[in-house]
């Protein structure tokens, strides 16, 4: 029996070595990233490949921008009209909000509160997006050198994208809100309802807003923003809009389906809050 096994072990030494090496690298990687440190193996592989991938990704985006109208035609025209209407509406809202901000700042001054500093945002290009069909992750071209660290918030102008979960000197991996491993504390943004829950991804284009109490006041059309609970994201970052609400089994709570404001399939650049 022994004499039959030994030649096989010798014969398949490479397979055994690489299987063991893979397991060891995996365990080591998990430990290093859990501590928020850089994995030199990832840094090395990305150091070689990230730049050409970024160029190709940029070239494909440019090509898509040049030829997209060929495929979208009328839809593009309708979208333009819709966006113009939306922009006019938002300009009105922005003016009202600026007015409210002025009043708010004046009242805070009167009450002696300190002003919150506006956080610095760092623009980043996407190097690779959803390269594995099973995971909703991004690789961006900003890393430790730019001050990005694990759990840095990533957003667009419209709303929250996700958080950084791995960094190398020149790149960072982002876990998008839609990934099934993502969970963000959320709050209903309505004056008479401040219900709090957790927005969880499920690898689809919608989020599940879970753990709401059964008496939570939430309805379709409500905006969901980050609650700030958990300490990863600052409060008030826009997540999405409630599409539907249903009671959980046994009526112990409610779950809402949330449509994110960010169009994850059309992301081209993002902002990182280091």
């Amino acid at each position: 029996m022994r004499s039959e096994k030994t030649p096989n072990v010798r014969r398949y030494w490479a397979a055994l070595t690489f299987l063991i090496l893979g397991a060891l690298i995996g365990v080591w990687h998990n430990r290093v990233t859990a501590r928020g440190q850089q994995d030199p193996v990832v840094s090395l592989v990305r150091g070689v490949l990230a730049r050409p991938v970024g160029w190709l990704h940029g070239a494909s985006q440019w090509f898509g921008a040049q030829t997209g109208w060929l495929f979208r035609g009328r839809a593009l025209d309708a979208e333009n009209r819709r966006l113009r209407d939306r922009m006019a509406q938002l300009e009105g809202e922005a003016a009202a909000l600026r007015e409210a901000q002025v009043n708010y700042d004046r009242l805070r001054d009167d009450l002696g509160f300190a002003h919150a500093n506006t956080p610095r945002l760092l623009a980043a290009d996407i190097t690779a997006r959803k390269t594995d069909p099973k995971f909703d992750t991004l690789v961006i071209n900003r890393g430790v050198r730019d001050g990005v660290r694990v759990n840095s918030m990533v957003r667009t102008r419209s709303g929250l994208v996700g958080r950084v979960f791995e960094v190398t000197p020149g790149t960072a991996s982002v876990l998008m809100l839609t990934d099934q491993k993502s969970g963000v504390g959320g709050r209903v943004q309505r004056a008479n309802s401040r219900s709090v829950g957790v927005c969880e991804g499920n690898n689809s284009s919608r989020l599940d807003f879970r753990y709401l109490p059964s008496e939570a006041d939430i309805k379709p059309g409500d905006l969901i923003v980050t609650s700030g609970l958990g300490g990863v994201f600052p409060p008030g970052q826009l997540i999405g809009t409630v599409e539907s609400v249903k009671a959980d089994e046994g009526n112990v709570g409610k779950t809402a389906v949330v449509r994110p404001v960010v169009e994850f399939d059309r992301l081209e650049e993002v902002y990182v809050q280091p």
Partner: protein
Amino acid sequence: MTPPVRRALRLSVALLVAALVQLAFADYLSLRGARPDILLATALISSMFCEANGGAVLGFSVGLIHACFAAPPGGFGSLLFSRTLVCFGVGWLEERIYRDSGLLAVVLVTLGTALSECLFFVSAPQRHLLHWARSVGTTTLYNLVLAYPLYLLLRRWLGPLRERDTY
């Protein structure tokens, strides 16, 4: 340059091109939510032109590239393990059971994609089983469609493993 060295170089070039295509364009190649795993399909077909050890090295390389760019928290080692094992299996079978052919390439890519994703699932369980199954199913179908053209390209680029394969 000796034939084995030339073959190794050609394999490396094939994998590098597949990696660049996968990383830069996979999202753009999405059809109704289905995305291909060109890197894995290339590795599985390339393993047919190696032997078992070569397959393991290929699988490890592909798993490493994939994991470095796409692994979610906790999934790094599982990607390495599943890719290495499946590509080793393809190389091992090639040594014992079959010789390369287009039909086999289609079967191997289909089964290999599904098997490597199942191995991944076993070592890194996913929370939403249905979403995972749908994603794996559509990727497997996509890879099935890509398998034959990829096989023809790789066979032309790498050449047959043995002289007797040319019958």
